[in-house]
Structure formats: structure tokens, C-alpha cells
């Protein structure tokens, strides 16, 4: 079964890759002749296929670019931190708190930023992620609290350190869950911030629709680890979301969006409860 899944993954990727056009232009619009064979050779010869997912900081930045407001009631309360007993919940919520932290920080919510970094540290410690978020990190946050750029760098660094520490220690499935938690929280914030009137913020709607691409990458990343039962369940849920995403074609139908929004809410609720 495991082998079948691997082959299907590769076939899927191959189908996407080999069904493509081959006329290319460079950055200045000049035609560059790259044959279909060149491109197929590129893919054929690839020693590895990797996924580069957006970090919570990037998600917060695109939210800011859409001109949204800060709404503290949307965050996963830090008081929940003691409720997470399984590693799965700890990893997912470390990602979720990282996203909340980035969102709060970008909107100059200094005390909330400090509180969410402390909650993130607690989960990182419990996951055994040594030094990803140290006391020094917390102090650095407090010392630079008015320097948004520096705070964003610290958050990015801790997010990277957390996931890379887990990779290094053969716990990549937890690393991918942290990334998933951060991604789903970004999507949750987006659908909540746009509210019922999907036409109220075209930029935000575009951002939400664009997340369909990241969802593909997210599923691809998680499928590396889908032999872990917990990951398999998460993937199945994301595939349900993917089906609903595919129905969201412009002009977006309010009813379809409501169903989609409810699905995002349900998934996120499952993670934080």
C-alpha cells in the first residue's frame, strides 16, 4: 500500500509536469527556446522534489497588504496552551500560535506578541525543541518590541528553528504539522476577516483563492509522512477542503463561500480544541 501511494504521488506529479507547454520568455520578454524535451529532462533528472510553504510571517504580511484590521477575538487564546497533551496538538498549535503571533506583531500588538511568544515557547519546550525559543529569544522580543522588522525576523527564525530541529531529529511529521497549523490559521484569519460579504474586500478574496496553490503544496508535504496515522487523517481532511476550494471559482458564490468558510472553521476548531 505504501509503495502504491508513493507511485501514485510520483505519477500525479509527472502528469502535472509533463502536460505542460514549452514556449518560454525571459524576464525581459525575449523568447528563449527551451524544448519540451529540455523541460522533461529537467524533471526526469530531479534527484528530489521539495515543497516551499509560506511561513506565518508571510501569511501575516499578505493579510496586512489587503488592508485588514486586527481582531483579537479571532486568535486562539493563550489560555488553551495547557490543554494540549498530544504531540500532534502541540505541533499544530505551535504553528497556530506562530501565525497569531505574526498577525499581532504586524499590527503593533506588543503585549499580545509577548504573550503568544511565551505560549509558543511552552509548546516548543514540551515538544523537546531545544533552544528554538529560549529565554534569550523572549528577552530579545521584549527588547525589540517596537522594532517590527526585528520582531518579524525573530518569529521567522524561531519558526524555522522549530521545524528544522524536528527534521534533524527524525520527527519530520511533527515539523509538517507545525507548518500546517500556521497555514490553516492564516486561512482561518482570512475567511473570518472577510466575513459574510465576500465582495467587500477583493484583495483579501484574491488572497484566499490563492491559498489553493499552497494547499496543493501542503498536501504534498504532508504526504511524505502519511504513513503516520495522525498525518493521514490530516491529509484526508485537507483533501475535503481542496474539493470545496475547487468550487470557489470567480465570481465567488456566497453560498459556496459560506460552506468553504465553515469547513475552514471546522478544521481549525478540531486543531485548537
Amino acid at each position, binding site marked *: 500500500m505504501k509503495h502504491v501511494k508513493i507511485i501514485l504521488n510520483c505519477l500525479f506529479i509527472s502528469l502535472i509536469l509533463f502536460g505542460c507547454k514549452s514556449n518560454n520568455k*525571459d524576464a525581459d520578454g525575449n523568447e*528563449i527556446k527551451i524544448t519540451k524535451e529540455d523541460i522533461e529532462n529537467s524533471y526526469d533528472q*530531479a534527484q*528530489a522534489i521539495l515543497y*516551499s510553504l509560506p511561513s506565518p510571517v508571510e501569511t501575516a504580511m*499578505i493579510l496586512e497588504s489587503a488592508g485588514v484590521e486586527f481582531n483579537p477575538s479571532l486568535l486562539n487564546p493563550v489560555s488553551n496552551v495547557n490543554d494540549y497533551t498530544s504531540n500532534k496538538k502541540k505541533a499544530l498549535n505551535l504553528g497556530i500560535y506562530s501565525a497569531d503571533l505574526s498577525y499581532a506583531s504586524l499590527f503593533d500588538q506588543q503585549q499580545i506578541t509577548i504573550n503568544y511568544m511565551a505560549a509558543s515557547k511552552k509548546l516548543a519546550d514540551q515538544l523537546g525543541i531545544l533552544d528554538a525559543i529560549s529565554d534569550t529569544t523572549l528577552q530579545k522580543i521584549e527588547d525589540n518590541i517596537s522594532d517590527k522588522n526585528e520582531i518579524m*525576523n525573530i518569529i521567522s527564525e524561531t519558526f524555522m528553528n522549530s521545524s528544522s530541529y524536528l527534521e534533524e531529529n527524525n520527527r519530520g511529521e511533527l515539523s509538517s504539522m507545525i507548518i500546517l497549523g500556521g497555514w490553516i490559521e492564516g486561512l482561518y484569519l482570512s475567511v473570518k476577516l472577510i466575513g459574510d460579504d465576500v465582495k467587500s474586500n477583493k484583495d483579501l478574496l484574491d488572497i484566499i483563492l490563492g491559498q489553493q496553490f499552497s494547499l496543493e503544496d501542503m498536501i504534498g508535504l504532508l504526504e511524505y509522512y502519511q504513513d503516520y496515522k495522525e498525518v493521514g487523517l490530516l491529509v484526508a481532511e485537507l483533501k475535503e477542503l481542496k474539493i470545496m476550494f475547487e468550487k470557489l471559482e470567480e465570481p465567488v458564490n456566497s453560498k459556496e463561500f459560506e460552506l468553504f468558510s465553515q469547513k475552514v472553521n471546522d478544521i481549525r476548531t478540531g486543531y485548537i480544541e
Partner: protein
Amino acid sequence: MKKIKLIVLALIIIFPIISYAQCKEFTESTAIPLLDDFILSGRYNSLKMGEGEQILIFKTLNKGITYRFIICGETGLPDNIEFEILDWEDNLIYNNKSDSYKKIWDYKSSSTQRIKIVIKVPDEGGDATVKACVTLVTGIKNLEGGGF
């Protein structure tokens, strides 16, 4: 034969995970300082690669964000590591081969789009068994590219 194919496929999937850990120090000391005022966008992608090898990375670019792509190869590999960025229909967006094999490229996407990044280590006739770290780091800046 079938078994060999399965092993090769499994290695394609497992290989990045092993290599990632080995290249962390190299990435942090060499590539991340080149971010300048860009913010690191989550995890970087690193692999041990040899001459003639290449990797494929899938990434989504968000509209309005300026991205910095940094490619670095460890000592022992040829200097002219090539990276090309293609859109989802395989239209070429950038190739550093026609840009003096630059290691850094900044790009602002006019739309949210999924891209493919191909990184190639040229075959210069060296020892094919020698493997060294190649890393791709992505940095981000907000809308106008002027920090926050």
C-alpha cells in the same frame, strides 16, 4: 526491476529529509546573511548534491510580496550553479544562466501563482561521488518593498 524503481522513488522522498539537517550550518552561515533587509520566509530548502544533479521545488508566490531567492553551493561544487524559475505552464520567468549565474534574484509577483524552481549543479567532469550542500533561501518583503 520493479523493486529497484520503488527503492529509487522512496529515496527521492527520503533523501531531502536527511540532507536538510546536514546543511543547516552551511545555510545559516552563507545564505541567510545575504537576505539583507528581507525577512526569511519559513524553512529553506537544502540538499547534498553532486555534479550533474538537479532538484525541483514547488512554491506559491503571493501577489504584492517581493521575494528574494538566494542559491548557494558549498565549496567543492562548481561555482556556476544554475537555477531557473518557471510558472505553472512552464513559461520561463528567470534563469540565472543568462544573468552571469547570479546567486541572488529579487522578484515581485504581479499575481498569486504557483511556480517551479529547478536547481542544477553542472557536470564539469569532476568526481560524481562528491556531494556538498546546495541551499535555496527565500526572503520576503511587504508591498512596496520598503520594510514595515
